[in-house]
């Protein structure tokens, strides 16, 4: 079975640009979460979606947005990129998104803002 897949794997953008990151969850999983991992830090929660509805939002500016599609895949969008947005962006999927369900992580998208 395919795990969580993220695309692209690496990306270089210029300050002020916009970026879209994509995530396909494990088949049958209806919840997707996004995390930002800055070098040397633990992942920080950005968003959680379940059944196409936002279920949680972390402490990130409005430049960050996300959505989930009917097939449960998800996009993370970041506008007006800053140098500080350079990070590994991780997507995690789970079947229900409830507290007692395990999250499975993808390999991440490495975003570099120059």
């Amino acid at each position: 079975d395919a795990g969580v897949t993220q695309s692209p794997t690496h990306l270089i953008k210029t300050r002020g640009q916009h970026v879209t990151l994509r995530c396909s969850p494990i088949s049958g999983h209806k919840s997707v979460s996004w995390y930002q991992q800055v070098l040397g830090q633990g992942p920080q929660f950005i968003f959680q979606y379940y059944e196409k509805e936002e279920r949680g939002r972390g402490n990130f500016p409005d430049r960050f947005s996300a959505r989930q599609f009917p097939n449960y895949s998800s996009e993370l969008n970041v506008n007006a990129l800053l140098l500080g947005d350079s990070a590994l962006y991780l997507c995690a999927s789970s079947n229900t998104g409830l507290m007692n369900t395990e999250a499975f992580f993808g390999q991440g998208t490495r975003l570099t803002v120059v």
Partner: protein
Amino acid sequence: AQSVTQPDIHITVSEGASLELRCNYSYGATPYLFWYVQSPGQGLQLLLKYFSGDTLVQGIKGFEAEFKRSQSSFNLRKPSVHWSDAAEYFCACITGGGNKLTFGTGTQLKVEL
């Protein structure tokens, strides 16, 4: 707000030696607790989890962790480390509101041959 603390940023052990990585959490009730491992440039792999019940939890790759409520700790242990265990280890918790994970800052493990 809930938090997870991993006091050791870097740990070096010799291959075959025992390992203990420390994790403390701050939360009024019993959280759901996890240990993840991350190899360079990779995503996170779940080693083990504690939801309730037996406080000694067995995981993959020979790892175990013990939940101690009195110390608010969830330390990860392995009796004999292999060179392939070199990686970064993250402790995390869920305290409510879906399965949003709060991570510690990680412990980088180096294994000397």
